């Protein structure tokens, strides 16, 4: 079985690193990173991942705009998206789900359980 590929889009490289270490310590998933919505979109179109972990608040194309662009492109429309957000309010979370998210993980997240949380949302065996 091929390794699952995760695309992590976040403008904070520190967070990218923490999340990547957290996931790779507990799984064999491959984590590809992108620093912006625009960059992430290009990567996703070029090599569609199994799932995308997407930050909401980013300069330029933010998380919701990136999601919309991904959903509009036939090549990426079916890729499940999990948001990473610092907005803890229920209304904020609801808005993200309504936009088409598979799951929402709040910042600060626990990197040791990040992969298991994602697997829960994606209904992947863990």
């Amino acid at each position, binding site marked *: 079985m091929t390794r699952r590929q995760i695309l992590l889009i976040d403008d904070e490289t520190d967070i990218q690193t923490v999340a990547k270490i957290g996931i790779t310590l507990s799984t064999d998933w491959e984590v590809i990173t992108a620093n912006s919505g625009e960059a992430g979109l290009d990567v996703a179109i070029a090599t569609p991942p199994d799932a995308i972990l997407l930050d909401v608040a980013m300069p330029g194309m933010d998380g919701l705009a990136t999601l919309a662009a991904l959903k509009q492109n036939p090549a990426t429309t079916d890729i499940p998206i999990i948001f990473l957000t610092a907005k803890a309010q*229920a209304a904020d979370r609801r808005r993200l789900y309504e936009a088409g998210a598979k799951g929402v993980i709040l910042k*600060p997240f626990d990197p040791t359980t990040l992969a298991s949380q994602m697997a829960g949302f994606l209904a992947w065996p863990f």
Partner: protein
Amino acid sequence: MVSSEQQHANLPLTLPPLGMFFEIAPSLLCVLDAGGYFHTTNPEFSSRLGYVLPALQSHRFLDFVHPEDCEATFDVLSQLGESAVTLENRYRSATGSYCELRWQLTKKAGWIYGAALEVVAVEKPDAEPAEQAAQALDTCQPVLASIFDMAGEAIICIDQDQQIQLFNRRAENIFGYGAQDIVGQPLGRLLPEPSSLTNWRQRDTFGTSGARPVAEGTSTVTGRRKNGETFPAVVSVAKNSMDGGLWYTIVLQDLTGQMAAAASIRRSEERLRTTTNALPVLIAYIDAQEYYRFNNRAYENWLGVPYQSLEGQRLSQALGPDIYAIIQPYLHQALKGERVTFEVELPKSDRAYRWVSISYQPDIQKGKVKGCFALTQDISAHKAADQLKDEFVSVVSHELRTPLTSIHGSLKLLTTGKLGHLAPQGQELLEIALNNTERLTRLINDVLDLERIESGLIKMIKVRCRVADLLEQAAHAMGSMAQAHGVTVNIVPVEADIYADPDHIEQTLTNLLSNAIKFSLQGQTVLLEAVDQPHQILFKVIDHGRGIPEDKLETIFERFQQVDASDTRKHGGTGLGLAICREIVQHHHGRIWVKSIHGQGSTFCFTLPKSSREDPSP
């Protein structure tokens, strides 16, 4: 041969023709014996005084004379001779009232003859109309005199030469003259411009008839007081023709007080207008037919037309169809008697849209809505500030959490030991760093939560929810914490529904549960209970922990008011949890409180109404 005169004189009284006169005479006639006792009376005597003859015959004439007149009557009677004497006295009738009688008395051959006419009749039902009118006038005279004196207006009567003839008390007060000083003086002394009165004199083209006014008029004049001061007055004039001469009655009202009151009202209106014009808010009065009746100057800036031009205009016309369509439903509500406040974005005269807060306060008089007071305030700056604050909270929330995510994540990964092991002291320091990062995260979350709830940025979205579900979800969320503390959470649910924001009620319940678990000892039980009450659901979180001292029961819901200052360190609390709970409960129109016996545990209670009342917060 004796003359007929002599014959008549010699005729005895009982002669038939004279006896008939005695029967029909309209006067009261009586014959008394020498002792003054009644012998005979005529029918008029009986009918007027009400006595029958047999009853009178045992009485003396003097018996019915008024006590005060007795002595004079006795004197006349005792000295009576053959020449007739006139006497007036008051004579008692059978009803007890007195008639004033004028007697002609004479004595002849031992008999006393009396004939009387009434001077003033107590009752005179068959009096002639002219006589009645004269009597009525007599009765009215004192009444008229009293009206003349007591009247609130000056009453001045002048003759045709404009000489003052009558001057009442009020006229004395107004003009400062005594009646005795001014009567006989020309009217010009009081009204320096008699030309104003010549107008009504010239108007007099009516004929004269009796004492009724034959010309009338009302005009405004200037009066002059004795001290030379002039004053505004209004006069009514009636002209009467009496005894061939003309008689003018002038009723004059001093307008000095009224003018002063009117000037005072005008000044007060001017002050009100100056004040309202100086205010930056739009102030108006709208009548029940939706016409502007008052607008302040601020309208000029908003609508771009002179504000005075709006008064008397219909709102639909003054504001235009677009704005009117927006405000119409609220205005209708206000004109039905409800107080209405709403926020809306409206275009100004420069077409730029501004946020305004509009309040309509109905003007209810005697149960009827006469109109409403309208207050419109430009809240665009406030709205912009709100938006800025919202953005600030959002940015802070993000900017604080982002570095925390990296710190927390890194520490968390290090503590797993999967990246290599540290010496025990190093591991301990790592744990301290992690715990405090988590505490900082909670604190940031709570501060932002509280701020957003208090400022109304977070709206409670109330939906129908099962109370039992709320309890179970809260208990489930706290399951791992309870397990870690060795505490059991038991639920006593109730089958009922409420309208509430489930996320926030769950947050309240988990906050309370988290406290209860933290302060319980290992092995103890925490009870989560709901009680169905008539109009509300009572939620209880009961623990058997250390409890709260009495002096802290009131302040425990304030920010950073923990039982023990070391609690934040020992138990990892932020000191904001209960403040957040209180905000959430109050936003649901509920109440929160705590009962506790220090050392025996605490019971945190809150109520939520069952009804779906709307949240009033914006």
